């Protein structure tokens, strides 16, 4: 495993604790050891799920992991119970993305109207790689901040 300086394979304690507390009945105490163990387990889960999903991607002769690979992985790992809530999450996410896209396109249209531009609307393809690139750019920016 190759880590760049400052990279952490652990998940933030505060978030993990919040998720655990939300799942258990009120007033149940969670020992520090238990919290730490669950956090480690979660990291291992991510690795296991990724490896499994990657197998499905490779079977499909694809180099990019996609949503269906992750869903297939859950079934393979015997976490079928996750499939329905995950599909719902995926639909919600897609609606959200569509909303954002429409909002930004609307802004562009409004801007064009104001400047009386004669440029035709450029239609963008739904390109998931584009989103990934944006994410990478964000990460690069984070690194630059740390150096400064």
């Amino acid at each position, binding site marked *: *495993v190759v880590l760049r300086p400052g990279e952490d394979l652990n998940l933030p304690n505060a978030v993990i604790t919040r998720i*655990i507390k939300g799942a258990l009945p009120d007033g149940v105490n969670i020992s520090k050891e238990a919290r730490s163990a669950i956090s480690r387990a979660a990291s291992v889960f991510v*690795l296991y799920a990724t490896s499994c999903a990657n197998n499905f991607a490779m079977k499909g002769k694809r180099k990019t992991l996609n949503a269906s690979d992750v869903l297939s992985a859950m079934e393979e790992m015997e976490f079928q119970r996750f499939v329905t809530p995950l599909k719902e999450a995926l639909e919600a996410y897609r609606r959200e993305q569509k909303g954002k896209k429409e909002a930004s396109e609307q802004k562009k249209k409004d801007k064009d109207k104001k400047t009386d531009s004669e440029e035709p609307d450029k239609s963008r393809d739904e390109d998931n790689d584009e989103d990934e690139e944006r994410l990478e750019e964000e990460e690069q920016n984070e690194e630059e901040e740390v150096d400064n």
Partner: protein
Amino acid sequence: MADLVVGKDKCGEQRLVSLPLSRIRVIMKSSPEVSSINQEALVLTAKATELFVQYLATYSYRHGSGKEKKALTYSDLSHTAEESETFQFLADILPKKILASKYLKMLKEKREDDEEEENDNNGDSDDDEAES
């Protein structure tokens, strides 16, 4: 079911996932042979991890001895890893714990067993010599 999908953070804003995507991505990328991950796969993995944390916690609590004490302890979790097939993949990272004194006792007993075996073997060779 909607509760599982959308949570609310302290600002009252509705959030799809609580775990930070950048961190999830780092862990995913550390897996060998993974070239790239599309955004939807990243979001779903983060969401699945949340569901996993909830499931592991509630399962361990229900099946563990902590239920009477209204607590979730490490042993509840290692018990789950050992007993449940679904969580078997965690067995190595959640080993059962024993007291140091018990472990030392085990080591001592093993040493004594090994010594006994050696003595038996020496005894045999002595017999051979005696015969010739």
